[in-house]
């Protein structure tokens, strides 16, 4: 089956992108400057990412808040209008079916879900929530980097008033867009949902700004890895719980106490007793990258876990990894080995994120 294309496909090709099949979509993995240059540009200026492969879903039924809360551990009833938060669909074992952003867009809840999980998520949502609509006629752009607010402010006056995780409707270069101040890079930035037919025009206007360059999925992955952000299908999946993944912070006191979502008893027990394994960050001492599925050993060479994401961190200037280790070995500074081609590469557990987050400060206005 031919991969699906986003409205920006022809623009990517014209910009010299190398296209790859990702979760059934033809997406740019990198542009001519390459992953490291795109990564660095994002950390220093602002990059435009096409994330239109992600699923955009509206929940508009009258009981949407209670119905969604029955599927996720996140506090949806406490989500104020024009605010967004991160949560996940869980299964009865407390595993993560998918992780996603949900925004309170006044008369509906607006979800952005992973491309690889949109069908699974939609089926689950439609079975349990009224008024589920996939917004298949919308594209999603991410403008990420320390200059993102300056740039977007020129095309969409007023976006600077958005606080981190704030959401609003703005006129972006003449196009009505749902804009959230969020992203997947650890930098300040925005995700911009626009009608599919307007996506090329908005992208061109953003790329015409001198601070902006296009970036592909390759840089998106190195940026999120350095930011310590989980990738579904790698760091989290149906066999890992939010507590094991270090995502307990997404579960409010009320939801911890009242439960009422799939896997609540498992998750409550792990929150009380600590889980048996934890997702940790690992900084390698040398230059050999350790990839997903590499075995993690303790100082004596005994297996203690497995790498779930690993590669080169351009801002770190060396190899980094995420992986699950036995809870008894999860403390920062613990010496570990990562098996690469039969050799244990030395490293140590470090606090996440690898690169400090630089999200917008304050509550906006």
């Amino acid at each position, binding site marked *: 089956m031919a991969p699906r294309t986003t409205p920006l496909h022809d623009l990517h090709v014209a910009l010299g992108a190398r296209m790859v099949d990702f979760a059934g979509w033809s997406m740019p*993995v990198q542009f001519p400057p*390459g*992953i490291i240059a795109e990564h660095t540009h994002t950390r220093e200026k602002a990059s435009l990412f096409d994330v239109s492969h992600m699923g955009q879903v509206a929940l508009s039924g009258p009981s949407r808040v209670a119905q969604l809360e029955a599927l996720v551990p996140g506090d949806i009833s406490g989500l104020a209008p024009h605010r967004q938060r991160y949560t996940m669909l869980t299964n009865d074992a407390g595993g993560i079916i998918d992780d996603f952003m949900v925004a309170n867009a006044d008369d509906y809840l607006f979800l952005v879900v992973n491309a690889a999980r949109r069908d699974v998520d939609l089926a689950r949502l439609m079975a349990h929530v009224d008024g589920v609509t996939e917004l298949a006629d919308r594209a999603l752009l991410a403008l990420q980097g320390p200059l993102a607010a300056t740039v977007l402010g020129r095309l969409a006056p007023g976006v600077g008033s958005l606080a981190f995780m704030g959401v609003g409707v703005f006129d972006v270069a003449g196009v009505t867009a749902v804009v959230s101040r969020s992203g997947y890079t650890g930098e300040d930035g925005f995700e911009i949902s626009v009608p599919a037919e307007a996506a090329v025009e908005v992208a061109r206007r953003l790329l015409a700004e001198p601070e902006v360059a296009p970036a592909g999925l*390759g840089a998106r*992955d190195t940026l999120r890895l350095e930011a310590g952000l989980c990738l579904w299908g790698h760091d989290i999946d149906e066999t890992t719980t939010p507590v094991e993944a270090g995502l307990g912070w997404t579960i409010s006191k009320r939801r911890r106490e009242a439960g009422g979502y799939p896997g609540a008893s498992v998750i409550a027990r792990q929150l009380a007793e600590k889980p048996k394994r934890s997702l940790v960050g690992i900084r390698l001492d040398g*230059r*050999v990258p350790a990839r997903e599925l590499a075995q993690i050993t303790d100082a004596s060479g005994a297996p203690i876990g497995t790498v779930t994401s690993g*590669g080169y961190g351009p801002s770190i200037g060396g*190899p980094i990894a995420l992986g699950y280790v036995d809870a008894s070995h999860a403390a920062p500074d613990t010496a570990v080995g990562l098996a690469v*081609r039969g050799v244990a590469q030395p490293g140590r557990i470090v606090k996440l994120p690898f690169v400090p987050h630089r999200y917008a400060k304050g509550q906006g206005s």
Partner: protein
Amino acid sequence: MSDLRYTKDHEWVRLDGDVAVVGISDYAQKQLGDVVYVELPAVGKSFAQGAEACTVESVKAASDVFAPVSGDVIEANAAVNDDPSLVNTDPLGKGWFIKLRVKDRGELAKLMDEAAYAKYVEGLDA
């Protein structure tokens, strides 16, 4: 035309007497993207034609590099060890990987010349 010979796995080899210099093609480095580490074999190691000889790590993934001809390693390029980006910036020159003392020059006959390789790569992109 250059005297390079290419494999279907995108290694190149240049014969100088009985010494074969081995690297990866410009097409290969473009496919890999930014190279961040190259694992080279020790001097003295022996490889049969087609055997796994080196590993090249890009930002995205690790890829094997196969010996285009049989031989013993007489030198590994210290420069790409210090600066792996040479594989991207000068794949056919300073970005070479290893030098092999060739056992059977006849093995080169199985490899593609520049024109045949260019045609082969064109077919991959189609």
